[in-house]
């Protein structure tokens, strides 16, 4: 790598093609996320936003193209290794371990080699301070939580990995406005701690507010790229790619 360390993206996706069986979902997606940067990924349903996140995570394998994390290729790495090097994943449907308690859900990310008991306590205290509901319900099964609480748990669970980047897939989907603003706050907190975020959303105002840069996807590829500060909610670009 000849590029200086400062300009190296944290996650770099170059021209990936991903298939589900015979359906060609991603047609050469390329995007970068810098260290500590909050980046949005917008587009209509079914354009491949979630598949892009799953490809980065290693949950689906691209047949072409490369994915790099801090300059190291991770294209064919199994998901558990991708998670351990510092990529957290909050899927669209949250995928809480429903029969595990809140605490056990968190322990799936916390019980790693090299994490001291003190550090574990700090990480837990941090999420319980931010989401007191989770603290109150720590011994309750994940499946008994409300949708909003499950979303908090899904984000907190990813934070247990102390990731350098979190892939957030539609975190505000189906949530009440109060919960949505809490999600907005936690994105701010994570950003403040230097955690990068790749945010897939349908909520345009929140995305423009939270992100520095936005990628627009259409038909399995990135078609447009802009700084969030240059866009407004009623921008023609937004209309073109989201049809709102």
């Amino acid at each position, binding site marked *: 790598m000849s590029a200086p360390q400062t300009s190296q993206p944290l996650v770099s996706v170059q021209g990936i093609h991903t298939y589900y069986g015979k359906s060609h979902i991603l047609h050469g997606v390329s995007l970068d996320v810098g260290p500590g940067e909050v980046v949005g990924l917008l587009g209509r349903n079914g354009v491949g936003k979630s598949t892009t996140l799953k490809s980065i*995570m*290693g*949950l689906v394998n691209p047949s072409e193209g490369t994915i790099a994390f801090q300059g190291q290729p991770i294209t064919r790495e*199994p*998901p*558990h290794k991708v*998670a*351990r090097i510092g990529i957290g*994943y909050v*899927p669209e449907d949250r*995928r809480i*371990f*429903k*029969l*595990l308690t809140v605490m*056990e*859900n968190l*322990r*799936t*990310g916390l*019980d*790693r080699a090299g994490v001291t008991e003190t550090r574990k306590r700090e990480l837990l205290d941090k999420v319980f301070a931010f989401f007191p509901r989770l603290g109150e319900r720590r011994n309750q099964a994940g499946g008994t939580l409300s949708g909003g609480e499950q979303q908090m748990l899904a984000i907190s*669970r*990813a934070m247990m*990995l102390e990731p350098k980047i979190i892939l957030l897939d539609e975190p505000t989907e189906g949530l009440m406005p109060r919960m949505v603003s809490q999600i907005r706050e936690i994105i701010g907190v994570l950003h403040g701690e230097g955690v990068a975020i790749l945010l897939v959303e349908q909520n345009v105002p929140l995305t423009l507010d939270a992100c520095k840069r936005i990628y627009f996807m259409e038909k399995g590829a990135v078609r447009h790229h802009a700084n969030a500060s240059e866009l407004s909610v009623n921008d023609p670009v937004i209309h073109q790619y989201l049809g709102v």
Partner: protein
Amino acid sequence: MDIPWDIILIQTVNGLVTGMILALVASGLTLIFGIMDVVNFAHGELFMLGAYAGVIVITATGSFWLALIAAVLFVALLGAALQITTLRPLLGRDPLNTILATFGLSLVLQNYALWQFGPVARKIQEPFTGQFTLFYLQYPWYRIVIAVLSAAIIAGLYLFLKYSRYGIWIRATTQDRVMAQAMGIPVPQVHTVVFAIGAGMAAASGVLFGPLVGVNHAMGLDWVLKAFIVVVVGGMGNLGGSILAAIFISLLEAYASIWVSPSQAIIVSSVVLILTLLFRPTGLFVPTPK
């Protein structure tokens, strides 16, 4: 007709003893199914190999307890090796592939045992031969010890699954394999460990049960068939359900054999199986079918 209370009590004890051993075999089977969706047709052969490993160690050392531990360790390691070589490459394929693979393993292991040890049954000497009086019967203490040890092993498994880091990994992987991976849980390794645990538990049952029946190459067949019935009746992949179903079916069979011959009593478990499949296919002891 008089109710034969003494016989009923004796059969309750018999049913519980058999039920605990069966629960030990079935809990390994159901754990493996729950996490990998693999129906392990070679489970009976792991039970049989455990018993043979026990015979060999007892012959060499004379210690039953050493034999129990050695057999568990040996068969657990063997199970891990079999899982890595035979099942890991098939992960994510159609379940038929793994059924055929484990069925193949079962045939190989059974015929290996026949070739290596011959058709004549071996005997494992029970570690102690004391008896107590149960009505007109001299009931061997060893049977009670088997039941208690089986219960202890199952309780150990429960505590391991409930509290240990690996236990949480296993339960998380059972519920959502994909999300478990995304949380950094090394799922392929978890699968291997679970298979090894299941194999080790089968081996423990083989050694514990060895003194009651002869050890031969086909001894796994009866047990694995019953264990399959238990696993289905208890709800595929449901550990607690399997344990209850093992005790339930063993008690039913024990009571049935008061009035009919033991070989006919087996019909009872088949009837329970069919009724379960017809009316409650998710299992008898599952709180709410999902």
